[in-house]
């Protein structure tokens, strides 16, 4: 019985571990060992983000099912202020852009631009949170708190969960600024910044679904 030569195709059918070889002629893949840590970390965090999005989709489904159950209370069309939602969207979109600029600053090892871009991202994030908090307070003051109806419970759960994610993101952002200040652009710090940027952009994607489903459809209803 002849032994089959070890084939990297067979051992790694999805080519999780392929790497540039630098030498060897084109078309022949040599087994380069495991993928660099940056790719493994980024991919793992990507899986986490997708599971987070799946969790949000459960809240979205809950909201969509309960949106009509106002129990005689106010509906979305009476409560939502589209101007406020528009400014919140602009803040989050701008912060996503400046977060991208911060990633570029990390790539070129420019501390000053990194701090500036992260600080602006932080300010836009805080502005978003402030506007959202203001809206929540005004809703509760008008007697439209989460205990008023199933619709409002679902609304506060969905929007509040996104707000909590943004709060956690701002804490993470400040931590990354402090870590770059204390430790510089070390490889591990850079991986954390990569994960943070992914997290922040993913929050913006969830907000796109949120302002469409909750605010725009609620107002158009």
């Amino acid at each position: 019985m002849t032994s089959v030569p070890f084939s990297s195709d067979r051992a790694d059918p999805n080519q999780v571990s392929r790497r540039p070889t630098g030498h060897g002629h084109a078309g022949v893949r040599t087994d380069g060992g495991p993928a660099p840590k940056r790719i493994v970390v980024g991919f793992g965090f990507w899986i986490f983000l997708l599971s987070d999005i799946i969790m949000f989709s459960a809240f979205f489904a809950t909201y969509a099912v309960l949106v009509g159950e106002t129990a005689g209370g106010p509906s979305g069309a009476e409560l939502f202020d589209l101007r406020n939602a528009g400014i919140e969207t602009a803040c989050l979109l701008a912060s996503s852009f400046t977060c991208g600029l911060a990633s570029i600053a990390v790539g070129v090892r420019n501390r000053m631009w990194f701090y500036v871009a992260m600080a602006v991202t932080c300010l836009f994030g805080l502005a978003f949170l402030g506007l959202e908090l203001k809206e929540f307070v005004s809703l509760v003051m008008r007697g439209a708190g989460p205990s008023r109806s199933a619709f409002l419970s679902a609304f506060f759960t969905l929007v509040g969960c996104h707000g909590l994610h943004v709060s956690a993101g701002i804490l993470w952002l400040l931590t990354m600024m402090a870590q770059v200040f204390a430790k510089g652009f070390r490889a591990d710090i850079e991986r954390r910044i990569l994960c943070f940027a992914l997290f922040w952009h993913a929050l913006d994607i969830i907000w796109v679904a949120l302002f469409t489903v909750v605010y725009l459809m609620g107002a158009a209803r």
Partner: protein
Amino acid sequence: MSPGENQSLVPDSAPGDEQADSHGVGSAVLVYLIGLVLAIGLTATSFFVAGTDLVWAPSIPVALVVLAIAQMGVHLVFFLHITTGPDNTNNVMALAFGVLIVILLMTGSLWIMANLNHNMMPMDQLMRMQR
């Protein structure tokens, strides 16, 4: 991707990694700038469509959903740098699975609950029967 392709020697990229062919700060910023402009355009269109009388009212929710999905695509491509390249296969596969679960969860919940709602006796009649 079939094995033996020359492209398969390209290293994987992590989600969020910028593409190797975008050299320099200028082109990197440009990618984010294009994404920002497209996202602003789609957002503005969404808000316009929601508040206007120019569009036939029953078509508004469909238009909003389409615009939102387009904007998510813009975010994925220009901000998260998810591409169709061979270095991104694993990221795209994970994304596709996530999208599948999200669609199952959303349509499944809405379908089942709408069906239950449809089959259930109206609440006032139910109350009258119990009396």
